[in-house]
């Protein structure tokens, strides 16, 4: 079964350092999402890509977070500088575009657990 690949699985970084996460969506999925899941809460969307274009980044803290999907395939999410409050699970998901009424759910990756110390 096709999977959304994420790396690393775990990351510990010091406050003020830079950190990056990588996501490889299911082949052929044009839409890619990055979600942040703080412990004890549901995921919240950070950024959504359609191919290489950003569709929604309204909740992305742009002063420190950046995301790119240069060739419309894999994606990188970067935080610089990291803050203690950034400790969370970062989930990537992908879905086919134009599902119309079929409304299939996304496929999520296993996530990257970030701890900022």
């Amino acid at each position, binding site marked *: 079964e096709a999977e959304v690949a994420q790396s690393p699985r775990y990351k510990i970084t010091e406050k003020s350092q830079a950190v990056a996460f990588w996501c490889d969506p299911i082949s052929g999925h044009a*839409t890619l*999402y990055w979600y942040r899941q703080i412990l*004890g*809460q*549901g*995921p*919240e*969307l950070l950024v*959504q890509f359609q191919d290489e274009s950003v*569709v*929604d980044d309204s909740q992305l803290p742009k002063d420190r977070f950046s995301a790119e999907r240069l060739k419309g395939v894999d994606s990188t999410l970067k935080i610089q500088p990291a803050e203690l409050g950034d400790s969370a*699970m970062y*989930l990537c*998901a992908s*879905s086919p575009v134009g599902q119309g*009424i079929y*409304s*299939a*759910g*996304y496929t*999520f*990756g*296993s*996530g990257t*657990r970030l701890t900022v110390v």
Partner: protein
Amino acid sequence: AQTVTQSQPEMSVQEAETVTLSCTYDTSENNYYLFWYKQPPSRQMILVIRQEAYKQQNATENRFSVNFQKAAKSFSLKISDSQLGDTAMYFCAFRRQGGSEKLVFGKGTKLTVNP
């Protein structure tokens, strides 16, 4: 903006029994989709069941079924014949039809199935 509320932070059930998880949501949209996702301790979010708002018939997937009350904006999940493998966090999620396809999640319910 849409909001999703799960009022039960934690629940437990005995193996083979039935449990119902609650979810309410708030939206001004008429066409939308609702989902229940399961997140086991291994962390990968897995789709359990989905419901299209225009369908009156409640969705079922094997031991999982929903009670969708559109007027009340309620979307509960019933798990029948609970199994140990059902132990997980369960998230209710909303997605509007058209526009941004983002999911709006509730805070989750931690379900423990006891032997």
